[in-house]
Each structure stands twice: as structure tokens, then as C-alpha cells.
């Protein structure tokens, strides 16, 4: 079934798709967002780690392989807001040393842009969605920028406990920049520090897309179609232009949505899957893939967590799931060079504790069960806190997404994600445990241990990397594919390297930069 042609069809109503929708709808374009999951409302967001699993997919549409298989579903979004409906809202930036890794160290890749190209958009996003923090304090690590629109969040003993350890080692912490309201902001209330951010904030204090860019897009008449699963991007007979998308609607009926511009904003895994599934005789290896790089150079973060118990009542249940403090003191790519490691580390301290589920206190001692677990839970309930060291792996072409031979219910090939960490990443993972324990011991905590286990895969970036030419990349720095001018990619898939910080702030900034570029050049881009 065909629908009336629109100006832009956006695949995915998460963080990046919502930015494109808001910018383009406000520029007068008829925008349709096709979202594979439900259209969540704020009052769906129950404060429960059990009920919070509803806002993630039910099983991955990917086969997961490699030495460190990618933990897809925990990270993914399903429904409006996407993964940013359950994100932690830490809003750190990349640093200048993230953009020329290949040129500087002979490893990884270079970005085609620099810190200064994105900096104004981080500032714009802060004013758009609301960021709390101390920008001036962060200047010990980064170039100056605009102040954040809100002061830092309140802190609690579970965060403050780490300050002594950092000071003892001559390391620095600043108030964490977070996309959460420390005061009322644009009619949205201030946070009440209940710690339920990660299952969806229903009061709008946390800047999830439902209350920021997606709300703006809807106000500007963008249309959201939930339960719309896109299977192909359609192209013109000569292969030069995208003409729209094919999708299956809530009744599992095939639909076609023609559009002048197609924006793929379905995350780093699904975008390449759709592009590879859209092969034609003019694009036999998938769309925008003459370089063979669609699906390649996936990157994930990993985190080395350190736990500590104190004698004091830390009120660990108070706060937000985002950090209270953060530190870039180990951000030099060679900070752990002596241990065979390479890559930046970004440290966060003082997230509110939950007691069940993947990141809960019970999983801080996965070796315990039975009476020993029960005793630990009682002991930790009011005395537990955690430090997390997030770190980066270098992009490797073998970390990739391909099509599998198995198909989903719509006949679309499943994807296969292959992911392995290299030796330098493993060394960085281990070095950060050593450093975390060293810091924790210096706090005076009565019990300290590293949360060692299988190396986790956190966030997902790459797969449709940006670059200067069609020979070395899939898109330009705005997300416009080199080969099909009206096919754009939004989201972390265009990151050539990941840096170490949480990616959403940069996703929003790059999406804003890309969407404004698209709006400005609409006449020459639209098909």
C-alpha cells in the first residue's frame, strides 16, 4: 500500500531521529517517523527494574558472535525515545584528542572534523534539552564553552565518598554534566533524585526525547507511526536517489512511504542491516557501500567497575542513575601505556544504587548465592557505592554487521554482529580495575573489590562511519551518504572512533549539526 509522498521519512524515533524530525518539521517539511516499537507515553514509565525491561526489544534481530559478543538488547531501544528513553543521561563530551587518533598514534581512524566543529552544537543541545553541570570546572580538561543552563545536581554521600580517594591519588573530579534538571527548565520540573532514570523518567526531569526533540517535532506536525518496521530503502531505477522506504505496519501489512529524503536513525546495528538488505542491481552490495564499509568498524565501550562498602550510611538509593562526579584524568590515550593498553578512560562516580537487575547491587557479587547473598544484600543496602571507568576500543574492520541467511517474520535477513576486543582493550580493561581499586582503597572504605566478570560491551558506535571520501567512509561529517545524496544516516553509527564518554550528548550534537545542514541545503539534496 502506498502513502502520499512526504518530504522526509525518518526511520527510528530515538535520540537522533527526533532531532532530525524537530529541525526539519520546524523548517516546514512534512516529516514522518517510522518507529518499530510502541509509542510510549510518560505514564507508561513505571518505576521498577522489572517493568523497565518493557522498553527494550524482545530478543535481538541479530545473531551475536565473536570473542566478546555484543550485548544488543540491554543497550537497544524499542519504541519512541529509543535507547534514550532508558539512558542514564550522562552528558560528557569527547575531547580534542579523540578526533585525530590515526594521525597522532597510527591506530584507529581520524574524524574528518575536529572538536571545534562540534563544540557549538554541544552548547546548543545543552540549551535545547537542559544540561546541569559546571562547564567552567571542566575546562581543566577541555576548551572553554558556554556555561550549562543549570547548576550542578545535588550530591549525596554515595558520590562524595569517592572524593577522598581521588584527592589521595592527585586525581580530579568535577560535578558531572547530566541531561537532567537540577532546577525547573522550560516548564519541566527539577529532578527529585529517586534513582529511577534508567527505566524511563515519567516526570520529564530527565531529557528523554519524549519531552525534548520528539515533543518539538510533534508540535511542528511531524507524524509518528509506531509498530512500523522498515525492511528496505527504495531507490530510483538509476540508483542515484532514494525514493522512500518499504515497511510493515502494526497489522503486519506491507506499506510504501515515498519521500524526498530518507534518514536512517535506527541505531548503529539496524541502519547497516537495512542498507545491506536494500541491495539492487545498481547497488549490488547494499546502498552507499561501494567502499565495502557499510557495517564495518563497529565499536563498543567497556567498563571496569569498582565496588566499595563503607561504615557510614551512604544513602545509595538517592540520586540519579547518572554520575554525581566525573573525571577525564585518565583520558590520555597512553595513560596506561606501561600495561600494554591503549585508549581513553572516562570515570564516573556515585550513580544511585538499585538492588536488582543487571546493574543492581545483587550483581556486584555475582559469585554469591543463598544465605551469603542475603547477608551481603543486608550489609550493602545502605553502605554500597560504585566507581565506573568507561573506556574505548580502537575501531577494527572485523568488528562488523553482516546479513545472515536466517530471516525475520517479514522476510528480511537477520543481521549478524561479530565483535571481539583486541589485546590493548583487554589490557585497558584490566588496568582500570587496578586503578579503581587503588582509588577505592584510598577512600577509607571498609571493603573494596573489582567487579570483574566477562568484559561488557556498552553503547554501540560505528558501522556507517563518516569520512572525507566514498573510498574511506560511508557518510560525510553531516551524515549524508557519499553515494546517494538524499540518503542520510543519523546516530552513533557515523562515529569513526568512540572516545570513552557516554555517546548520547555527541549523538544529539552531531544530529543537530546534520539536520541543520540538511535543512539549509534542502533544495539541492531532496529528490
Amino acid at each position: 500500500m502506498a502513502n502520499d509522498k512526504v518530504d522526509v521519512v525518518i526511520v527510528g524515533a530515538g535520540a537522533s531521529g527526533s532531532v532530525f524530525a524537530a529541525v526539519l518539521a520546524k523548517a516546514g517539511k512534512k516529516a514522518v517517523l517510522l518507529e518499530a516499537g510502541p509509542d510510549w507515553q510518560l505514564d507508561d514509565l513505571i518505576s521498577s527494574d522489572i517493568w523497565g525491561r518493557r522498553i527494550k526489544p524482545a530478543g535481538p534481530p541479530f545473531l551475536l558472535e565473536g570473542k566478546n559478543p555484543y550485548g544488543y538488547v540491554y543497550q537497544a531501544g524499542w519504541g519512541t525515545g529509543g535507547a534514550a528513553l532508558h539512558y542514564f543521561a550522562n552528558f560528557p563530551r569527547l575531547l580534542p584528542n579523540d578526533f585525530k587518533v590515526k594521525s597522532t598514534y597510527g591506530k584507529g581512524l581520524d574524524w574528518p572534523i575536529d572538536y571545534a566543529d562540534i563544540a557549538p552544537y554541544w552548547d546548543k543541545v545543552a540549551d535545547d534539552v537542559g544540561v546541569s553541570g559546571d562547564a567552567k570546572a571542566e575546562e581543566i580538561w577541555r576548551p572553554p564553552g558556554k556555561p550549562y543552563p543549570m547548576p550542578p545536581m545535588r550530591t549525596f554521600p554515595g558520590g562524595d565518598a569517592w572524593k577522598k580517594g581521588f584527592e589521595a591519588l592527585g586525581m580530579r573530579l568535577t560535578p558531572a554534566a547530566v541531561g537532567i534538571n537540577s532546577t525547573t527548565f522550560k516548564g519541566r520540573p527539577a529532578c527529585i533524585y529517586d534513582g529511577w532514570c534508567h527505566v524511563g523518567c515519567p516526570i520529564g526531569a530527565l531529557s528523554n526525547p519524549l519531552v525534548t526533540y520528539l515533543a518539538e517535532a510533534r508540535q511542528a506536525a511531524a507524524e509518528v507511526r509506531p509498530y512500523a518496521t522498515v525492511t528496505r530503502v527504495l531507490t530510483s531505477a538509476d540508483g542515484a536517489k532514494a525514493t522512500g522506504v518499504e515497511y510493515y505496519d502494526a497489522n503486519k501489512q506491507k506499506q510504501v512511504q515515498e519521500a524526498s529524503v530518507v534518514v536512517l536513525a535506527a541505531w548503529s546495528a539496524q541502519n547497516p542491516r537495512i542498507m545491506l538488505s536494500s541491495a539492487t542491481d545498481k547497488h549490488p552490495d547494499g546502498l552507499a557501500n561501494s567502499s565495502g564499509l557499510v557495517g564495518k568498524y563497529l565499536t563498543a565501550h567497556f567498563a571496569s567497575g569498582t565496588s566499595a562498602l563503607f561504615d557510614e550510611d551512604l544513602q545509595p538509593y538517592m540520586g540519579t542513575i547518572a554520575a554525581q562526579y566525573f573525571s577525564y584524568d585518565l583520558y590520555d590515550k597512553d595513560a596506561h601505556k606501561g600495561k600494554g593498553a591503549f585508549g581513553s578512560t572516562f570515570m564516573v562516580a556515585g550513580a544511585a544504587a538499585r538492588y536488582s537487575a543487571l546493574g543492581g547491587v545483587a550483581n556486584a557479587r555475582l559469585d554469591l548465592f543463598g544465605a551469603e547473598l542475603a547477608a551481603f544484600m543486608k550489609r550493602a543496602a545502605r553502605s554500597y557505592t560504585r566507581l565506573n571507568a568507561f573506556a574505548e576500543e580502537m575501531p577494527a574492520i572485523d568488528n562488523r554487521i553482516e546479513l545472515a541467511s536466517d530471516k525475520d517474520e517479514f522476510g528480511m535477513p537477520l543481521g549478524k554482529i561479530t565483535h571481539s576486543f583486541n589485546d590493548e582493550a583487554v589490557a585497558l580493561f584490566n588496568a582500570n580495575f587496578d586503578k579503581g581499586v587503588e582509588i577505592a582503597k584510598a577512600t577509607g572504605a571498609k571493603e573494596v573489590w573489582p567487579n570483574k566478570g566477562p568484559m561488557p560491551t556498552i553503547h554501540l558506535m560505528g558501522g556507517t562511519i563518516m569520512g572525507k571520501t566514498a573510498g574511506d567512509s560511508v557518510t560525510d561529517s553531516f551524515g549524508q551518504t557519499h553515494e546517494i545524496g538524499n540518503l542520510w544516516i543519523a546516530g552513533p553509527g557515523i562515529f569513526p572512533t568512540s572516545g570513552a564518554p557516554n555517546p548520547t550528548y555527541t549523538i544529539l550534537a552531531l544530529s543537530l549539526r546534520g539536520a541543520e545542514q540538511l535543512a539549509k541545503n534542502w533544495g539541492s539534496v531532496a529528490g
Partner: protein
Amino acid sequence: MDEIERRAFMKGAAIGALAFSVGGAEVMLTPRQARAQGVVLRTLTADQAATLDAMGETLVPGATEAGITHFVDQQISIPPEQALLEARIMNVKPPFANFYRAALGAIDGASSARYGGRNFAQLAGNEQHEFVDLMRQNKLDGWKGPAAGFVYFLLRSDAVDVVYGTMDGYAHLGVPYQPHIAPTRSW
């Protein structure tokens, strides 16, 4: 609007209980209530339920009474996109019932091989503890099914969910639950 008002302002949306079938009608109950009322299981067999009860209790004391078996049984009997299980977010391929059948079968198979034909529920407490300690380390001979360590992780998570992941669980630990939108009382 003060903090208390804001915290409570959406309480009317509370929908925490699960739908269990009682006498042909759908009734909203917590798993603990469903167990106490003897609600008939939909998917798990009696043997599988006995194994899950025993495993849940070995992993987290209180899990049996908190209704781990009714929780899992109800969850694997509904469409996967409605499921609230940890299996959902750990990349287990739906239908989730397949994973639980395979996992519980592997537990009893390995238990039977190690302890002279006795299923896990028939073991003494010290034997159950020994078995689980080997299971979590992938050190059980004769294990046939999903990786033993992964089964340990997911069943432990289910047990933690029903014991500690609820409002009652937080109260038991002496920490405030502080919901914006509360699941129904006790769940």
C-alpha cells in the same frame, strides 16, 4: 508542586500486577499471591516447577514463597514483547519458554548424573549448594543445555527480581523505594 506531590502525581497509572488465569478468568495478582492461591501453571510441568522452586530458593532465600515459579510461568506464557524477564534483555531468542525448558532440563539431567538419579529438587540442601556452586563456574559434568553459568545468571536474576526487585524487597532491605509511578503494592 512539592516533591511528595510530584512523586505521587501519576500513581493512578499503577499497573504492576500480572494477569493470571483463575477459573477461566484473568485476575491481576502478584506472583506471591498467585502461588499462595495455588493458581494452575500454564506452561511449566510439575517437575519443572519443582526444579525451579528448589533452584530459586537455593539461589535467593525467599524466592519460592515470593512466587518465582508463578512469575516465570506467567512470563513465558505471554507474547515475548510483553515479557519482563531478564532473559529478554540478555539476548535470549524468543519464545522464552524454550530457554527455560532447556535450562531446567539441563539442571535435572546434570543433577541426576551426579547424584544417582535424583533431580535437583530431591537433593539435600548441602548437595544443592554444591551443585549451584559448580553450575555457576561451568564445572558440572554431564551438563547439556544453555551454558551453565548463563543459566545460573538468569535464574539468579529471576530469584533476585521476586525477592529484592519489588517494593516489599526494598522494604526488607530497609531502603525506600521512592517510585514516580508505583507498581502495585508489593510488586
